Structures are given as C-alpha cells and as structure tokens.
C-alpha cells in the first residue's frame, strides 16, 4: 500500500465514522463537532484529488461559517431541544430502503462506468490559466458573470426578506378586516 492509498483510507474511514457519529450522538454540540471533523476529512480528500480551491472553500465556508451558525442555533435552542417526532409513518424502514437503493444504483453506475483521468480541454485550460483557481476564476468572472452577480442579488433579497418577515408584529393593528 502506497502512502497515498494509506492517506486515502485513513481519511475515508475518518469521514464515514464521523458522519455516523454525528447522526447517532444524542448531544447537539457533539454532533456539530463531529460534523466539523467530517468536513475537514472531506476537504483533505479534495486536496488529494488535486482540487485545492475546493478544499479551501470547504474549510472556509462549511467548517468555518456554516458551523459557527449551527453552533449559534444549538446555543439558542439550549442543550436539550424538543424531542423530534417522525411525521411520516414507517419513516425509518422507508429511509433505509431508499438509502440501500441509492447505494446499489451508485455502485452499479461506478462499476459499469468508464473513468478517464483529467485530460484534454480541462487540464490544458488549467495549464494555460496558470492554476486551477485561476481557471475557475476565468470562468466565473467571464462566461458565468451574470449568474454570479445574480446570486449576490438573490442573497441580498433574501436578507431584505428576512428583515421584513422576521420583524415583530405591531401591538395595535388598525388594518385587520
């Protein structure tokens, strides 16, 4: 087993165990911390796949920003949140069925599919741009500029909407009919 393979297997096991631990732990704060471990393990896997930009974003956005948000939510809810109940009857067996089905479909697709290493236009585009992040940036700020800018407007409207809808109702209401 080469060093790279060892690296992969260690990270893979870490990612899967932390994901399982996150689901099964009864304590919300532990669940959040296990999720951080999972995100970091996946980020390192991206790094091994020679996707440094994705790895950095994974750590910054998920392990950083989103996890902090989750911790805030856990803090606000308190250590013992209301018990979750299942609305759909037979949710667990159904979920298991779908999960196994998805696993089967993915396994078949991976076994039957043909995988080729990065060649042709993509790797040459990366080479011309002088790196993966540069190649990505050239796409993002050129061909995909309009969707990129629109995304920021959508976020802005989301914030304005949250402010509008989350404000406290007025005490007196002169307009109800």
């Amino acid at each position, binding site marked *: 087993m080469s060093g790279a393979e060892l690296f992969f297997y260690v990270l893979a096991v870490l990612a899967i165990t932390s994901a399982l631990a996150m689901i099964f732990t009864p304590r919300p704060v532990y669940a959040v911390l296990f999720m951080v471990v999972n995100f970091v393990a996946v980020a390192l896997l991206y790094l091994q796949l020679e996707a440094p930009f994705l790895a950095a974003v994974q750590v910054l956005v998920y392990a950083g920003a989103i996890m902090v948000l989750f911790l805030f939510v856990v803090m606000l809810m308190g250590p013992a949140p209301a018990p979750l109940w299942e609305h759909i009857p037979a949710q667990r067996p159904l979920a298991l069925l779908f999960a196994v089905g998805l696993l089967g479909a993915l396994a078949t697709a991976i076994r039957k599919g043909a995988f080729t290493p990065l060649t042709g236009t993509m790797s040459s585009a990366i080479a011309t741009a002088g790196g993966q992040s540069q190649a990505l940036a050239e796409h993002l700020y*050129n*061909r*995909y*500029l*309009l*969707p990129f800018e*629109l*995304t920021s*407007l*959508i976020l802005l*409207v*989301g914030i*304005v*909407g949250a*402010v*509008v*809808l989350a*404000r406290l*109702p*007025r005490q007196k*209401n002169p*307009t*109800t*009919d």
Partner: protein
Amino acid sequence: MQINWADTSFLLAPEILLTVGALIVLVLDLLIEDDTSPVLPGFTLLALVSAFGAAAAHLVTGVDDVALFMFAADPLTHFFRLLGIGTALLVLLVSVNYVQARSKHTGEFYSLLLWVTLAVVLVAGAHDLILLYLAFEFLSITSYVLVGWLRDDARSNEGAMKYLLFGAISSALMLYGMSLLYGATGTTRLTEIAAFFTIPETQITGLYSIVVPALVFLLAGIGFKISLVPFHQWAPDAYEGAPTPVAAFLSVGSKSAGFAVLARVLLEAMPAFQEHWTSLLVVLSILTMTLGNLVALRQTNMKRLLAYSSIAQAGYILMGLAAYSAGATFPADGLSGVLIYLVAYLFTNVGVFIGAVIFEQATGSVAISDYAGLIRRSPWLAFTFVVFFLSLAGLPPTAGFVGKLAVFYATVAKGLYFLAIIGVLNSVVSVYYYFNVIRQMFFMPAPEGAERVRMPASMGLALAISFVGTLLIGFYPEPFLNLANMSRDFISALPLL
C-alpha cells in the same frame, strides 16, 4: 472571451437601471425618517420609467444581440421587458397609498417591487438554463416576501407560506428536469440544446427516454409560475393573502415571465419535440381553463374570484403556444397571439385589480356582496369595472376580444378544433361569473348609509391608464398588433463559443 463593457452595459441598460434604482431606494430608506415622504416612490417611479424608456428604445431600434453570453437582448425580451416594467408602473401607482396605510416599512416594499421587476425581465431574456434557473428563483423569492408583506395579517403569512412550499417543490422539479436535459445534451444553452437534437433520431434513441421526463419536469416548474392546473393550488391563497397590488403583479407580471420562459424553452430549445409538448400543452390548457372557470363560479371573495379567473386566463393564453407553428404568417403562428393576449391582459387584469384596491382602500372589504350598489357610490368606478369584465370575458369592443380572437385564430389555423371549441365554451361560462359581479354593482341596493367611494389621485390615474388601454386595444388594435408582430422574433441562431 473578452467582455466588451460598453456593449454589455448598453444591452443590459434596463436591467442595470432597475438594479441601481433598487439599491439606491434601499439606501435612501435608511436616510429618510418620514414614511409618507414622496422621495422613495418618486425615485422608484423614476427608475421604472427610465428602464421602460431604455427597453422601448431597444425595441424601436431593433437591438438583437446576446449580453454576457447568457442574456438574449432580442425583440421577444424587449417585449417582455415593456410588459413587466409596465405592470410594475401601474402597480406602483396603486401601491403608494395602500402600503403607507398598512406598514411603516415602505422603503423595502419599493425596492422589492424593483427587484421583482428585474427578476421578470431577467427571466424573459435568460438564454441559458443556469441563468434561467437563478432568475426564476430570484422571481420566486422576491414574490414570497411580497406576498407575506402584511406581517400582521395571518392570511398574508399563510399565503406566503403556501406559495413558498409549492414553490420550493416545483423549483426542485424544474432543476431536476434541467439536470436531465444537461445530462442528455451536455450543454445548458438553449440554442445548443436545440442544435443537439438536430442529430438524426436513430443515433440518439436512448436519450428520448431522458428528454421526455425532463420536458414534463420543466413544464411542472414553469406551470407553477403560470398557475396552470394541476400546479395552481397556491394561487388563490397567495392572491387572497397578498397585498392586493402584489396580487395584481403576480397575476400579470409574474405570469407573463412564466410564458416568456415557456416560449423560450419550448420554441428555442425543444423544437424537435414539438409533437410531444403540443399534446401536453393542449391537455394542460383544457384542464386549466375549465377548472379555473368552474371554481370561479362559486367564489364570494373578489380576490379569490380574480385568482381563479386569472388561472382560467392562463389556459386561454396557453392555447396560443399549443397552436405554435414556426414560420407561419402573422398572426397565425400562435406566439403573436400569446403576445397580443398578454398586452390585453396587462391592461385588463391590472385594471380590475386596481379597481379592487380602490374599493378595498375605501371600504376595507373584499367581499363581492359588498360591491352591491357601487353604481350609486362611484359611477365611474362601476363603469370601468364593466369594461374590464367585458374584456376578461373576451367580448367586443375591448382588448380581451382582440386577444382571444388572435389566440383562437391561431388554434383554428393549426387545426386544433377541439381545443378551440372548449375555449369558446369556457368563455361562455366565464361570462356568468363576471356578470354576477356587475349585477351586484348595478341592480342590488347599496347598504344603508354607504358613502361615496373616493380614490386618491395616483390610484385614479392608474385606473384611467388601464381603462384607456383596454378600450384603445379594442377600438384601435393596429399599433398593438404591430408591436406583437415586431416582437415575435427571437434569437434562433447564436454564435457558438
């Protein structure tokens, strides 16, 4: 791939004006303490008028190009720009007094009105599935917020929540359809998708089993916006709960954006599947107009009546797309029928909503029974209602008649006689419930001590514009027919990257 900024800002001028306007309104809102200050609505009006002017200039000078690789600034887009911004202008005129009476947070309302207009415009010009999806989401999210605007009104909250839940599901369906289409063709550009399907069918037979579900999912997502049956359940609740000017915008602006997308996706990306989607559209159209009209018969709330009526109207408009035939002469091609109908529908349906806003503002009621004796309380308002209802029913000499005539003409020219007969039968049914309201206004006694219905000047102006537009198209349709004839061209071939 170098971006030419001068060209880009010229092609996207209406969009840029709307964006900058909305941002400035947001900032001005922070600086201005007074909720009733005329600065914010005035600035919103300025942004809308300048964007309208830019779009009109594009249409008149025949601009036909692609901006930033994804936005088609072609005549079809210019048409929908004018339609969307025009709707927003009329809605703004009736909103000012309405929102000032109901909320202290008027600044956000104006900026959201500009955003939602921008969303309509972007949706209409989106020429790439990625931009299309994002613009559609943009439109949905702004609409959810606007529907839930009346924070203190439980029905407004309920309407927004229902709209959000239905919207999220249909948006997921549409995205799934798009991903299937991308998987099948390897491209997100509408014209490249069309080019892919010019490959002989025998070489890509396996792909048809992917493309047909993709088509169905896309239709479900877009049908939600247009409120086609069976994707319409949100509409009555959202219209009823929403601030009435917002309901007016949803029923016209948002709906016409849906038709723009439908036209682009079907005519630009999937012309190879016309026999598939024609039969789907025929079924949807029959279901939509029949259910809309039958349920409208039993409504007692004006806003719900108008919601079902606008569902039925969507069914008629859809007939035009079902009857589409490429290269046919004007107005037998179906698409021009859709465009004429949409212009007529803009003036008529916004008009009838404006009437409802004026009545609600004066009396606080939206029940149809409270319209009794309106002829004594405001003869002018009652008379405009008659004209709008005549137009909605498709009777001469109004805009609705011209619109229906164009759509039915295309349907018959295409040989879809069954669809045309169902459409005519539905129009007859619709007369009954429209005239029921008129009967209330003219032949029922006004309640004791009812006062005259007064309207603020801006609302009166909006009502007058809609009224004149509805009659003008009925009596002198030539300029509007020319507009539709000019606008039915869309980009069919783009330079490949």
